[in-house]
């Protein structure tokens, strides 16, 4: 208990009274009149609630199919640019084979989705395209980029890693064990694609395991970068080098809740 003397008690009372008068005076000077209205500017937009969206096995399969079309579009762009020539001519052959693989994968996962009563999805994933692929291609094809051909290989490598990671991650999300096995049978081939493209970007046996750039300390591209399949984001450095030697780095991530192909999403090819 705090003991106050009579003198201290009187001083505190006076201080409280003075504070109250100051606050009351400020209120009067502000001239506010309480009319029970809240100030507002404009009108709040009407909110349209999103459709109920459940992450089902079919949604995960349709999402995987959409990524296959992203990969196909990436290779089509790479081939259409006509820059995979000279030493990279063999990459053009790889791109043709990988495109065929991705079409097979898309057909396979769509067939599984249809078996579950869902509709097939034969378009690329819009969010993946808008967020990662279109900006990457814009950067790669800009004037002044000294090596667009190698950058397009780097983009393809990133897309293959994205596909492999996506299939690996859905194994833990799918409810049907048979579908999990189907998913990883496709995912393992995406990983093979990625490993072969990594060897184009960082050739030879020294490019298989993890290494880092001596100047920047950043990890080099590796065909087998870790003991277990990673689900981490994928870094893609492309474009014209800046004065300090660095380049624009895009960060790619596997599809999340806002990029899944729910039942309500319609392909508008």
């Amino acid at each position, binding site marked *: 208990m705090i003991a106050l003397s009579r003198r201290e008690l009187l001083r505190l009372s006076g201080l409280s009274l003075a504070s109250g008068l100051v606050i009351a005076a400020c209120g009067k000077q502000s001239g506010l009149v309480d009319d029970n209205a809240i100030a507002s500017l404009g009108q709040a937009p009407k909110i349209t609630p999103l459709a109920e969206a459940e992450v089902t096995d079919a949604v995960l399969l349709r999402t995987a199919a959409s990524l296959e079309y992203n990969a196909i579009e990436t290779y089509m762009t790479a081939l259409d640019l006509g820059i995979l020539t000279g030493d990279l001519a063999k990459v053009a052959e790889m791109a043709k084979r990988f495109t065929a693989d991705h079409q097979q994968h898309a057909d396979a996962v769509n067939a599984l989705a249809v078996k579950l009563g869902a509709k097939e999805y034969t378009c690329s994933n819009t969010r993946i395209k808008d967020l990662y692929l279109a900006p990457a291609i814009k950067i790669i094809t800009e004037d002044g980029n000294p090596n667009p051909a190698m950058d397009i290989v780097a983009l393809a490598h990133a897309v293959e890693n994205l596909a492999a990671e996506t299939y*690996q991650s859905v*194994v833990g*999300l799918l409810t049907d064990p048979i579908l*999990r096995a189907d998913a990883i049978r496709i995912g*393992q081939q995406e990983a*093979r694609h990625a490993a072969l493209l990594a060897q184009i970007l960082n050739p030879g046996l020294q490019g*298989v395991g993890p290494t880092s750039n001596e100047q920047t300390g950043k990890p080099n591209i590796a065909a087998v970068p*870790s003991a*277990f399949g990673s689900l981490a984001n994928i870094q893609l450095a492309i474009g014209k080098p800046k004065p300090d030697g660095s380049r624009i780095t895009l960060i790619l991530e596997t599809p999340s809740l806002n990029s899944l192909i729910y039942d309500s999403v319609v392909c508008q090819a």
Partner: protein
Amino acid sequence: MLSDNDINLLAFTQSLELTTRDLYLTVVGLKTLSEQEGALLAQFHSHHVAYEQSLNGLLGKNAATARNEKVFIDFSSKLSKSSTPWAQLLEIENILVATHAKTIESIESAKVAALMASIVTVEARHAAILATLTTSDLSAALDNKAIALVAS
């Protein structure tokens, strides 16, 4: 807690990883290999050690304690007859990919299936790289025609 079914499947998987670990060990120090080839084999060997140990941790007292002797003898015989180990190691990696995928079909735990998936994607990378050391044929690196082994 793992079901009896998952324990049996994982123990079989672990025995195959122990086998592959030992197969790599028989070739990792070959004098006919270059320094970089030796380093590659050491890296892949270390991965199989990691797989075996992660499965060992999951299984605890139910862990497998021995490799699959039949598979080991079969492959070590093939390796001893070949001047380079690449084709045989490619075959065993492809068998592992096929077998683990088949195992995932029957595993009940989604978390365990996810662990297996993270192994499969890297063993597929091993296979792709080993294929490039034997041939320039793309299909050798991409297509897996291996037949899955079945737990007896």
